[in-house]
């Protein structure tokens, strides 16, 4: 029968095509030294002046090279040179321009100077912006729309070139922070720090108005007094006052180099209409370059043939050697040739492709949590047997983040520093069982917070000394939440015995503002309502969309709200500033959503923020931080929620993985055992063909009676 022949031929064709029918990658890539990963959100910006989100930095950090980077293995996080020769040490000057010693009081420091010396011989990736003719003139600096006909991507330009990295490129990029048509998220912050940046912004705004909409603003025409060229490979940044955290910013793509000719190249008429922009096609000196940018589907990074070379680190923290993280000591980076990132908007396909070996690593979504891990007898997290059989490895780390519920300190009921309001906040802090929340709603993926400072950040103290004494007792070698009776007593002392006003008898009703409120949030909010009910407090949840929520927080029209913060850099200042009076959301539009103002804390914060964690004054800084944290624990402007834990899974063939929340340029350290991956993929993805035959047979069974019926009816006599 022709139908059966067709089925048989189809089966034969499927079998002949190889064993991995479900391989989502082109056949030509099979066996390549390629890392496969996924991204869920499309990156909006790849221009280093604008890029700030995690989705974007996963790409930009592999391409652009700021002068500094984080050591891949050392903990606590340590800065090491990337393109710089050394980590710059700030020199301090007073108002008269006299140099001051390193330990000079912050108040006497008028300016800080960072001088960065670049390593010579570093070259950019091949790019048409660098292509020059025999006379040294750029090939592509006078393009018009007509000449761009037929060119749709950077790879369509016939000629490319490269050149050495120069100090001017870093200076140009710092000026771009003030560019009126770019919207750098750190411009306002840096304008406060870098001498002359705010004024440059104003000058550039005026200059841009005289240009056509797509006209090029040549930043070399404008001076930035705070950033100067010392020689071809050295530049100097002058800051107002003292800002020790500035070195961390020098490890972010905001301070990566952008050559003037690249800016000029992309500013030519017709380029933006074809998405030929720095936002779409980044240009850098890093180990990888973006060769395919289709953020709707797939992004590809390939080894930069001009990469200056770097070797794998030979030192780390204790345990790294045993974990095999030092096995590649001294070997040339990067290890892989290519990284393919596919867009996966849904968690189920992402997870299944990881299990099939088509992604080398994966996170664990709530859908797949039970399939991936289980809690051991001692409460430790273990991989399930299915994962172990596949040789999958689990990496866990506490993220440098905090999620909290903030009290609006401007609120007449829960706000203010009065004893009654403080006791009310303390009582609520005790009543809300964060450990239970983490267990129920986060599958144990977090640790309860005692203060704004997460583990790994200078000032975090583990053990008995680190507990929040308002909320916990130290019992049998571990922190134990205070009994609810303590909270009730505090509430009574606050003037709300049994959740009622001691004078009027009115019940205490608190309002929580939050985003979402969908089906998934209902159980969480119900749980929270029950926590407040333990104190006989009525909680009213006001769910709204994100914009409305932000608006209410900005205006101080909230009483209690959920919020979170991810660290920009590993310094306690980056967490404690969230409660600094100068950052009050209502007063200044800053990041202090609780509008907490305590002169005692502000004084301590001002002291600690200008100190270094290392060196002779490190111990002094630690003592000040501990005092500041004690003030915060006593005042309880936040209910310190939790620090989330990252759980990531990696296949056995993926080597040199270490949880890193600060440094993002980690791709160069990853190594893949391609043969092992290929073997596993083949074993895990043998097609099951019998269902096709069964379906064909089933179809036949359906068609056959119909055909028989048809023939019978056609041949039958009319009734």
């Amino acid at each position, binding site marked *: 029968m022709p139908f059966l022949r067709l089925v048989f031929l189809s089966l034969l064709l499927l079998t002949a095509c190889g064993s991995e029918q479900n391989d989502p990658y082109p056949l030509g890539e099979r066996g390549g030294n390629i890392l496969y990963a996924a991204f869920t959100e499309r990156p909006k910006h790849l221009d280093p002046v604008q890029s700030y989100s995690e989705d974007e930095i996963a790409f930009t950090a592999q391409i652009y090279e700021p002068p500094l980077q984080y050591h891949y293995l050392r903990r606590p996080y340590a800065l090491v040179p990337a393109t710089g020769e050394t980590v710059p040490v700030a020199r301090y000057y007073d108002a008269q321009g006299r140099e001051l010693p390193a330990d000079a009081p912050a108040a006497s420091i008028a300016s800080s100077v960072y001088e960065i010396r670049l390593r010579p011989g570093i070259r950019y990736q091949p790019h048409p912006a660098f292509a020059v003719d025999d006379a040294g003139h750029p090939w592509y600096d006078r393009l018009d729309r007509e000449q761009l006909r037929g060119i749709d991507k950077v790879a369509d330009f016939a000629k490319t070139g490269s050149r050495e990295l120069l100090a001017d490129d870093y200076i140009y990029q710092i000026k771009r922070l003030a560019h009126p048509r770019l919207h750098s998220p750190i411009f306002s912050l840096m304008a406060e720090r870098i001498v002359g940046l705010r004024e440059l912004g104003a000058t550039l705004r005026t200059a841009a108005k005289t240009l056509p909409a797509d006209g090029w603003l040549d930043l070399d025409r404008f001076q930035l007094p705070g950033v100067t060229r010392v020689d071809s490979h050295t530049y100097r940044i002058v800051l107002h006052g003292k800002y020790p955290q500035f070195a961390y910013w020098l490890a972010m793509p905001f301070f990566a180099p952008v050559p003037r000719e690249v800016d000029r190249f992309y500013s030519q008429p017709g380029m933006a209409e074809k998405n030929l922009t720095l936002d779409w096609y980044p240009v850098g000196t890093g180990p990888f370059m973006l060769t395919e940018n*289709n953020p709707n589907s797939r992004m590809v990074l390939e080894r930069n043939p001009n990469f200056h070379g770097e070797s794998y680190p030979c030192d780390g923290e204790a345990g790294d050697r045993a974990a095999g993280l030092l096995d590649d000591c001294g070997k040339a980076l990067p290890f892989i040739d290519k990284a393919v990132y596919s867009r996966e908007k849904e968690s189920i396909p992402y997870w299944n492709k990881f299990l099939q070996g088509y992604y080398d690593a994966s996170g664990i979504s709530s859908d797949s949590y039970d399939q991936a891990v289980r809690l051991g007898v001692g409460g430790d997290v273990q991989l399930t047997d299915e994962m172990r059989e596949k040789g999958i490895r689990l990496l866990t780390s506490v993220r440098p983040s905090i999620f909290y519920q903030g009290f609006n300190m401007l609120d007449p009921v829960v706000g203010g520093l009065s004893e009654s309001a403080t006791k009310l906040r303390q009582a609520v802090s005790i009543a809300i069982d964060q450990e239970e929340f983490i267990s129920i709603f986060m599958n144990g993926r977090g640790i309860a917070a005692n203060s704004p400072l997460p583990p790994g950040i200078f000032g975090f103290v583990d053990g008995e000394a680190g507990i929040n004494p308002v909320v916990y007792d130290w019992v049998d070698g571990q922190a134990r939440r205070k009994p609810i009776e303590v909270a009730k007593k505090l509430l009574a002392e606050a003037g709300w015995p049994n959740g009622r006003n001691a004078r009027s008898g009115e019940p205490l009703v608190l309002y929580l503002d939050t985003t979402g409120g969908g089906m998934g949030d209902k159980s969480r909010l119900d749980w929270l309502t029950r926590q407040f009910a333990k104190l006989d407090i009525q909680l009213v949840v006001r769910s709204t969309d994100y914009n409305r929520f932000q608006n209410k927080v900005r205006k101080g029209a909230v009483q209690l709200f959920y919020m979170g913060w991810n660290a920009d850099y590993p310094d306690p200042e980056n967490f404690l500033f969230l409660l600094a009076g100068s950052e009050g959301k209502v007063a200044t539009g800053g990041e202090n959503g609780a509008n907490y103002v305590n002169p005692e804390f502000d004084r301590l914060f001002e002291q600690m923020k200008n100190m270094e964690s290392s060196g002779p004054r490190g111990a002094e800084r630690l003592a000040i931080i501990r005092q500041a944290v004690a003030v915060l624990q006593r005042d309880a402007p936040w209910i310190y929620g939790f620090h989330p834990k990252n759980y990531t899974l990696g296949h056995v063939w993926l080597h040199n993985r270490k949880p890193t929340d600060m440094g993002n340029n980690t791709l160069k350290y990853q190594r893949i055992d391609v043969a092992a991956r290929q073997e596993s993929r083949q074993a895990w993805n043998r097609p099951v063909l019998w269902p096709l035959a069964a379906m064909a047979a089933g179809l036949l069974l359906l068609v056959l009676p119909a055909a028989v019926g048809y023939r019978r009816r056609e041949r039958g006599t009319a009734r």
Partner: protein
Amino acid sequence: MLAYIVRRLFYALPILLGVNLLTFALFFVVNTPDDMARMQLGVKRVTPEAIAKWKADRGYDKPLFVNAAASGSGVLTETIFFGKSARMFAGDFGRAEDGRDIAREIASRMGPSLAIALPNFAIGLLVTVSFALLLTFFRATYLDFWGVVLCVAMMSISTLFYIIGGQYLVSKVWRLVPISGYGGGVEAWKFVILPVAIGVVAGIGSSARWYRTIFIEEIGKDYVRTARAKGLAEAAVLFRHVLRNAMIPILTGVVVVIPLLFMGSLLSESFFGIPGLGSYTIDAIKAQDFAVVRAMVFIGSVLYIAGLILTDISYTFVDPRIRFH
């Protein structure tokens, strides 16, 4: 007919203007330009100056509909509505809020959307019409009864279930095709086959049941009896007479969706990782990208109007009695 089409096209203009006005009003009731700026600039370290700069750069610093501070026609033209809408009627969709050219993005995403939607539409139509004719042929038999039961069961199941179930069975358990993804060239078939198959199966229930009803109604008419009396085979009666006469209600539902195939499928594209226009729209709504939302709603309206006109025209092909005046 030309006069009719031109007249319909003129009718379309106020409709498009109204749709644009409604989209604009609804969007800005929910999102202020400040909200849009915050969404684009991120949640950290966003200052009022940065928001003002973003708005000014993109023309969102003007009043929405009426600029009382302007004079003359500027009262209406120096507004966000005019600034954002006027160019669109000239076919210029401008740039997305992240700076990327919308027309270019639409052009690049149309292919993947059509790669799924076209075969889904064509095969789906063929399968459902054939199945409905089969049920009609076997009307009032067990085959018809269980066929209708199957249709009701199939239409009661959510499309999401078909997608997840299909991915689980075909890609995970049987490992026959990739679970998700998209690729061009000769290997494109392996990404397309599963979403198309699922789309066809998911659509059988409701469509076949609807077509069966139309055919059953048609089959009781006098001309069918006459055709049978002539001695025509039942297949000839069904395909040559019943199908043709039942085309008007079928075309009403079918032709109108043909232009909308360009818009892609929101759910399928998301689950199968197809970089089409459906996922583009969803992404834009999530990102509060008004420029893209407005462009996609506008294109959707244009295509819908085009579909309605095509439907009217198609009537003349299947029913010679219909003429346009």
